[in-house]
């Protein structure tokens, strides 16, 4: 059973989304997603300062099995990316919710995050897969 922390939101495409104290939002992929992907070998990070709409493909995670797009969970501007993933992409496997975060965004609308799934809804969602 994969880990699904309660203090964050989730998307149908398996990104997790955490609201930080400074109003920015951190994004990564769920424990369930990293298990499905297998060993991650490369992350193509988004460009800082670029703006994306919700559900835009903004970065790519490549594993030994597949290359998958990561989608913008909510509309906003990318303010930071996890440079540690350049050398150690497998941080996403070993620590999907902490050291393996992928990028931070400044949401266009602070209300948007509330539209995403909470942990229990996401748990039910992946149980159906």
């Amino acid at each position: 059973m994969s880990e699904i922390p309660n203090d964050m939101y989730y998307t149908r495409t398996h990104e997790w989304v955490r609201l930080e104290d400074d109003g920015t939002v951190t994004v990564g992929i769920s424990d369930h997603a990293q298990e499905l992907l297998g060993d991650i070998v490369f992350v193509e990070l988004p460009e800082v300062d670029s703006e994306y709409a919700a559900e835009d493909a903004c970065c790519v995670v490549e594993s030994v099995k597949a290359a998958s797009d990561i989608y913008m969970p909510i509309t906003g501007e990318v303010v930071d990316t996890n440079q540690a993933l350049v050398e150690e992409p497998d941080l996403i496997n070993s620590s999907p919710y902490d050291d393996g975060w992928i990028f931070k965004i400044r949401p266009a609308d602070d209300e948007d995050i509330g539209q995403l799934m909470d942990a229990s809804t996401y748990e039910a969602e992946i149980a159906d897969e």
Partner: protein
Amino acid sequence: MPFIPHTEDEIRDMLSVIGADSIDQLFDEIPAHLRAQSIDGVPDGMNEMEVSRLMNARAKQDGQPICFMGAGAYEHHIPAAVWQITTRGEYYTAYTPYQAEASQGTLQLIYEFQSMMTALTAMDVSNASLYDGASALSEAVLMAVRGNRKSKSRRILLPTNVNPVYGSASRSIVQHQNIELVDVAIDETTGQTSMDALKAYEGEDITAVVISQPTFFGTLEQVDAITDWAHANGAMVIAVVNPMSLALLKPPGEWGEKGADIACGDGQPLGAPMSSGGPYYGFMCCQKAHVRQMPGRIVGRTVDQDGKEGFVLTLQAREQHIRRSKATSNICTNQGLVVTASTIYMSLLGPSGLEKVAAACHQNTNKLIAKLSAIDGVDVLFDGAVFHEVVLKLNKPVAEVLAKLADKNILGGYDLSKDYPQLGNALLVCVTEMRTDEEIDDYAAELKKILSANER
């Protein structure tokens, strides 16, 4: 692996299982107006005897003149061993193999090819080849648009001294993808890209700059200055290079402070005959940082579970069978056999052999230039050093002069007046290691006669 087509019975059985009446019915979903119609102008099929007869007649038309023509395809000596080895059954395929466990020999050969190309270009990575030089530039343009993520303009600066065929092929391929290829003027005294024309784009969002070395005119480009200018302006650098020239010239990986980002070109000079235009192959190398944007297949060396060396296709997540519509390209290799010949050619010559060939071309070209400069009615159009081609300005229309040289069994060069009308009566002449001193003397003597005749 035997190729066994389905029998009529098998086809009928399969159709009955899925409940379809005919194979055509399987395509009903595609609206009629989108289906391939019969193609006009394609002649009926011929049997082997008829094809041989036709090709022999065509080969005779060619007449095997003494060749002073380059302009993208070059006549070099190909050691007999090259095609003797290439056409062995073990090598006889056009494709990169899918099954690594059954294709170690072919995969190793491609790996060696890639290693040779990276050594020649001083780049980090090479792919397993592309169709030809023109498609290699097109793919390099698409790759730069993907790879330069800071640039949003999708504008590529393309100096007019890049092979015009490469330019038009690239335009055909990229024009419907919202990518703009912007002509950059040349300096009319040197044939190099005009630094003033380039600097007009300073501060603008430019995705990449193409640099041809040598230029289509045979002259040498200011590769360091343009590379550094491009990088300072946030643009990637695409090098279009003649691989033979790299035996003598500074490789693209060492241009300027940081080197070119992508190097591509046509591999024909390395062991492929001119054969009326093909098949040739394209090559492409890049810096490691861009490898995930590289099109085509890449062979890697690895070890198996017992620690034994083995060769595999690698970084396949870029490719269409994994990334589907988001693949870097739908290109696969189709030119594997020519690549095989090239790899054998390079291994037979080695670095010093290649250097000797390139130096002999350069020397022969200089010999011809020295002879021709003494003729009234001939001027060397551009100042500065050349590799193995030179542009001559004649006092008569080039087509007329070429026709008269053809009467003497001399293929006198490439008439630039169609692609570059502003250059006047300009003729592009190439001399490789194949031309003897006697042939060079003959060319000069015949040209002198033609240009001095009928003068009133």
